[in-house]
């Protein structure tokens, strides 16, 4: 700590966040202030606490953005300069580095230690696994040290994520690594998708942010429909697999009433029946793959074998026009061969290209679709219309339909091709 500031800031309000049973981030920052052998870190922690206390007292934030990047990149760092840096000089530059985690967020303790060592060499010693988009957030480095820290971790395999109008860090669930509901290789898909757009991650040149999220089943543990511009969700199109013996065990242990109240009647498409002799019958053609019965009767029921993914486009949070969910644009596609992966990457490329051409500044992909209509979007990215894309057909007659015969013929033609196995 510098001589003129060798005194701890008083933090009476923050101190109140050290009581109570949940682990305290304030105690953690104080450890850096009091125990760390590096005086630089002691000073940063002290002034950070001072500024945070000031925020608590005045109920205002005091960080301003700016422009900071590492050599060769235009994104990946969230610049923070203190507006009250005179009072808290040791944390006046306090930038966050967004770093892409390994797919599925897997680490060895060795790798976590190595990242921790690099970070205390160059940064504040504060880190979050992970931010809401999915980045490792290394919180608090000076402008100069962002470069040193990046150089060090980049040498052993880590790269920056996105910030600003660019492709952002992607996210996938634990999936096939440890989940019986997984219907695809989330891990591979995350890397195939986001690593195809590395240039668009590091050099912001899009209308606004673009996020990929991958969930292995419709439980959607990565919140992809509500948070991702490009959501991929594993699913299947054949029958749910039933283990009769486990069904019987389940009914024995839980009772008939439980099965009726918590499985049969909870099916959103009413496609399940419990027969008089306690067998479970499923009308699979009407199953909407909601996952509920598989979640409840985890041992007895499993996803089918003809697996693939559904793609939804356009989910986002509030700014600017309000919350939007993703919309189905690909109801089902297989994801097994290299060609399948190439195909989904190509769909993503087409969508990003079209949006880059047609999106307004600061307009998310979903907002553009809202503005131009799904049809213009589908035609722009060369995807065929499909009734799985809608909750119900048009209710308004205010539409010009003089191309009806040609459009109907396209539908029949697609049916003919599909029937021939095309």
């Amino acid at each position, binding site marked *: 700590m510098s001589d003129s500031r060798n005194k701890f800031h008083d933090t009476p309000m923050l101190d109140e966040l050290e009581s109570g049973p949940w682990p305290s981030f304030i105690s953690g920052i104080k450890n850096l202030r009091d125990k760390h052998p590096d005086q630089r870190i002691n000073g940063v922690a002290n002034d950070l606490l001072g500024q945070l206390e000031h925020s608590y007292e005045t109920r205002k934030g005091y960080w301003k953005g700016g422009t900071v990047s590492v050599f060769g990149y235009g994104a990946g760092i969230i610049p923070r300069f203190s507006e009250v840096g005179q009072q808290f000089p040791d944390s006046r530059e306090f930038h966050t580095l967004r770093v892409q985690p390994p797919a599925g967020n897997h680490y060895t303790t060795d790798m976590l*230690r190595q990242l921790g060592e690099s970070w205390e060499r160059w940064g504040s010693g*504060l880190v979050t696994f992970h931010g809401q988009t999915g980045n490792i957030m290394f919180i608090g480095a000076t402008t100069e040290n962002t470069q040193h820290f990046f150089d060090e971790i980049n040498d052993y395999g880590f790269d920056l994520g996105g910030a600003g109008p660019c492709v952002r860090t992607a996210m996938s669930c634990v999936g096939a690594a440890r989940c019986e509901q997984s219907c695809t290789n989330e891990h591979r898909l995350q890397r195939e998708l986001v690593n195809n757009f590395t240039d668009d991650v590091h050099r912001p040149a899009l209308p606004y942010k673009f996020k990929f999220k991958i969930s292995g089943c419709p439980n959607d543990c990565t919140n992809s429909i509500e948070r991702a511009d490009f959501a991929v969700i594993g699913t299947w199109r054949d029958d749910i697999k039933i283990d009769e013996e486990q069904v019987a065990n389940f009914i024995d242990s839980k009772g008939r009433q439980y099965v009726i109240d918590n499985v049969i009647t909870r099916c959103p498409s009413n496609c399940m029946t419990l027969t008089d002799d306690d067998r479970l019958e499923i009308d699979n053609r009407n199953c909407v793959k909601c996952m509920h019965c598989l979640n409840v009767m985890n041992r007895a029921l499993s996803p089918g074998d003809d697996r693939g993914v559904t793609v939804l486009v356009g989910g986002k949070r509030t700014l600017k026009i309000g919350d939007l969910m993703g919309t189905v644009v690909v109801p089902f596609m297989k994801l097994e061969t290299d060609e399948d992966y190439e195909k989904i990457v190509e769909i993503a490329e087409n969508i990003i290209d079209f949006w880059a051409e047609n999106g307004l500044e600061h307009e998310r992909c979903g907002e553009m679709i809202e503005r131009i209509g799904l049809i213009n979007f589908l035609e722009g990215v060369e995807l065929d219309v499909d009734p799985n894309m809608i909750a119900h057909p048009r209710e308004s007659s205010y539409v010009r339909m003089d191309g009806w015969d040609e459009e109907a013929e396209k539908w029949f033609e697609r049916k003919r091709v599909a029937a021939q196995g095309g």
Partner: protein
Amino acid sequence: MNLQEMRRPIESGCPDGMQYMHPSMIRNFGQWRYHDHPRPGVLVHHAESGESIWTVKAGTQRILDVYTLRKLCDIGDKYGDGHVRFTIRSNIEYMVDREEKVEPLIEALEKEGFVVGGTANSVAFISHTQGWLHCDIPGTDASGVVKAMMDELIDEFKHCRMPNRVHITTSCCQINCGGQGDIAINVQHTKPPKINHSLVANVCERPSVVARCPVAAIRPAMVDGKPSLEVDEKKCICCGACYPPCPPMQINDPEHSKLAIWVGGNHSNARSKPSFQKLVAGGVPNNPPRWPEATAIVKKILKTYQQDAKDWERVNEWVDRIGWPRFFELTGLPFTKYHIDNWRGSRKSLNSSTHIRF
């Protein structure tokens, strides 16, 4: 340093997780059959091969200092198999290949103050944003709100006593980076921005600020002979969208930036389709350091849900079954004109039927 000496980045992108994954997860990748939930905070997954893997999940302070990070690693080395992962709600998960390792691992975590739980029908860790600690536009401090709230909800994290899982989120502005939650505690500004006109011309790209406003309430203006921006305060919805691109349009107000509470956001497709959260309470004081008023409302909603919902019903499904009038009656929260949506598409949120519960 001159440019020739600068190191070129290696654009490696997202690293391969396989190199860090537990060996049993690699061996059984895509071959898992089912899982059990022997106690809160512990899952055991069984593979086709006959192998099983135990996962112990623990909550932390999320903003980790390197000491805490090392403590988590020490526990993983001594009691676990040296392989961990983080959930999207920032819990740490330790994977071990034998059941005998589970109890000592739990003991070690709890001895160091970490909280084992957060699985199945518990109240999960609150997912949150940066707040005053690091954000440039925050109305509150997410980490502090979450710490204060988790202190009170910790027993519900450690037990599985809810009808279904409960995801709580917080956000420090109306952009809502915290995302959708069964219960969400978000900043809600109630007054238009206060403009420092002497700074606008130098700091803000005025056309993009005008374009950013969702209700077209901002227009260019000359103020005291300087180019600036003015806000039509009758149209302004106090959303704060102009503040990030134009910091002289200060939206955060120590008194008038409040918290609002929303319920029923649900990302899953299980049973019902995914749903967005709905406003239930506004005008909640933004009251550091422990935000007692917000916590009290959250606890009241949780208690009511716990008592009234059926097994497996998420908050949105529970309210759909009992209806909104009953929700307000049971929770004692006031129903106001602000609950009735008037944003685009909002007619679909009105009741156009005689389906009314008396």
